[in-house]
């Protein structure tokens, strides 16, 4: 409805430095912090991968999917299905299988969904994801509402993933690899075309691009990467349930991507960490004593989260990076900086 804006695609040097420091900090953390927080960070890193996959679809291509979690949860379930109760399975074949399953689901659903536009697209992505949710929720054979357990993490040759430290660094490596991979895609012919589709799909078609094919490619690729994250989630937590594919999970992903700032993948990482941190913050709020009664602020975390989201959309709709970009632009205008290359 409003004019599409340029994303912050070229990260300024300061942002790259901060990201680098962040990776160093993540790498150093297990030696300095507690095991509990290392587990939390592992989860955050997995969610960061999930958020980056959605950023490709939403931030770069402009497709707002309310059902992206379906591909996240599906891969976790695939791992659960192939892992027997008594022994682990090999990573080398189960990872591609799970990612492939998610990508295939995304291809099939994408084929039906990508032909729709605007608000329709939003609604049908939600509807199809709910369909997948109910498929698992209603069927005991697929685990039902209770979900499924993954009793052993996959084996990966010399990498002992049951060792939490090893798993932590494995996840960090995947995070960094996915980030650089997606940055590569952003500047590739595909990435440039997707950006064009976000800004002006009509003109792209008039110039000869088959935008259906491009959007479907983005949808499938994003679905596969979401599956990568979902596989790691299942491996780490040892448990999958339909909530992983549900509306709330999809909503969380959207909020992570927006919170950080869309379209450059760095924002998705920042947003994932920030969002999870906020969630913990709200849930851990203290209990106040007012007069004779107690007010358990942490219990009502949904209220604080909701208010935060409303405040975010009113005050900083382009997220943290957007806010920084806006402030920088205002400074630049004041100082008379002309022709600043922003695109």
């Amino acid at each position, binding site marked *: 409805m409003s004019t599409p804006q340029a994303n912050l695609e070229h990260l300024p040097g300061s942002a790259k430095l901060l990201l680098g420091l962040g990776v160093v900090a993540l790498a150093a953390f297990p030696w300095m912090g507690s095991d509990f927080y290392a587990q939390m960070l592992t989860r955050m890193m997995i969610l960061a991968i999930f958020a980056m996959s959605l950023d490709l679809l939403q931030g770069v291509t402009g497709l707002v999917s309310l059902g992206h979690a379906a591909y996240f949860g599906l891969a976790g379930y695939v791992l659960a299905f192939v892992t027997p109760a008594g022994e682990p399975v090999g990573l080398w074949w189960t990872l591609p299988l799970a990612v492939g399953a998610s990508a295939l689901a995304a291809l099939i659903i994408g084929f039906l969904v990508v032909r729709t536009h605007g608000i329709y697209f939003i609604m049908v992505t939600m*509807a199809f994801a709910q369909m997948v949710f109910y498929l698992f929720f209603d069927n005991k054979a697929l685990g039902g509402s209770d979900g499924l357990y993954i009793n052993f993490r996959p084996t990966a040759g010399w990498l002992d993933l049951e060792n939490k430290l090893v798993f932590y660094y494995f996840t960090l490596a995947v995070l960094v690899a996915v980030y650089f991979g997606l940055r590569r895609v952003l500047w590739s012919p595909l990435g440039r075309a997707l950006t064009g589709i976000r800004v002006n799909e009509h003109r792209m078609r008039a110039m000869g691009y088959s935008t259906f094919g491009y959007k479907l490619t983005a949808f499938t690729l994003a679905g596969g990467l979401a599956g990568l994250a979902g596989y790691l989630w299942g491996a780490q937590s040892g448990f999958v349930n339909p909530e992983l594919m549900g509306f709330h999970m999809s909503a969380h992903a*959207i909020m992570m991507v927006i919170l950080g700032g869309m379209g450059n993948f760095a924002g998705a990482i920042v947003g994932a960490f920030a969002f999870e941190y906020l969630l913990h913050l709200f849930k851990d709020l203290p209990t106040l004593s007012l007069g004779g009664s107690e007010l358990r602020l942490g219990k009502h975390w949904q209220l604080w989260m909701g208010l935060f*989201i409303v405040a975010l959309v009113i005050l900083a709709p382009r997220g943290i990076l957007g806010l920084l970009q806006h402030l920088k632009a205002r400074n630049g205008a004041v100082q008379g900086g002309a022709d600043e290359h922003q695109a």
Partner: protein
Amino acid sequence: MDLANFLIQTLNGVQYGLLLFMLAAGLTLIFGIMGVVNLAHGSFYMLGAYLAWSLSVQWGSLTLAIVGGLVLSVVFGLALEWLLFRHFYHRDHLDQVLLTFGLIYIFEELRSMVWGDDVHGVPIPDLLSASIPLTENLSYPVYRLFMSGVCVVLALALYGLISRTRLGMKIRAGAFNRDMTEALGINIKRIHAIVFAMGVGLAAVAGMIAAPISSVYPNMGSQVLIMCFVVVVIGGIGSVRGALISALLVGLVDTFGKVLLPQVSGMLVYALMAAVLLWKPEGLFKQ
């Protein structure tokens, strides 16, 4: 399936469909005229149900509760529109999605704080608690017929309003060409507020009359919202007529599906949506 069962399932399907229509009509109008997608639309349904329950407990009468609840819901809707929604009519869909996400969280938590998390039943009023016998063993509850009746009356009222009254003309004009309508001196802001309030009112009434059948429980809004989206997608956004036909279709498919194909019944409606999208990506009756 014998005739009596078939009749019962058809009546159930129509009743479910009409209930969905009440929600879908509001959603499709609000989107068609103001261009805003409201993921929290299910919350108004939930609000209606909870008001029906709590007010009927306090005042002892479901009828009074419905009237009072409707007034409260409409006031709430108008306040929400004035405070938040009207500033988002021109915004990105993404921003609207984000806003209404936040509202879903807020409403769910407020609901929990005000009314708690228990499941509550609402008794059917004595006047409507009888059943009409169809065969020796089977009878059909009067209350369900009453529900369908209320929905039909409201649907006709909506149709009458939009196509026969001056207000309806202004509403249609506003949907067609906002700037021109404003230039003609029609207060478009008031039209938007009225349309929003109508949407909220319809959803709340749906929740209120459904409460005795479905009970009152947390998250009841999100389940019905999804169905509502499917109805709007199949029917075509902005088309109230499309919403009606689509809602009846969905109601019947879902009801008969649960009886005839219970294993896949949950997915049947989505399969229907997929089939429609393959044929007409913008719904059956897109404006």
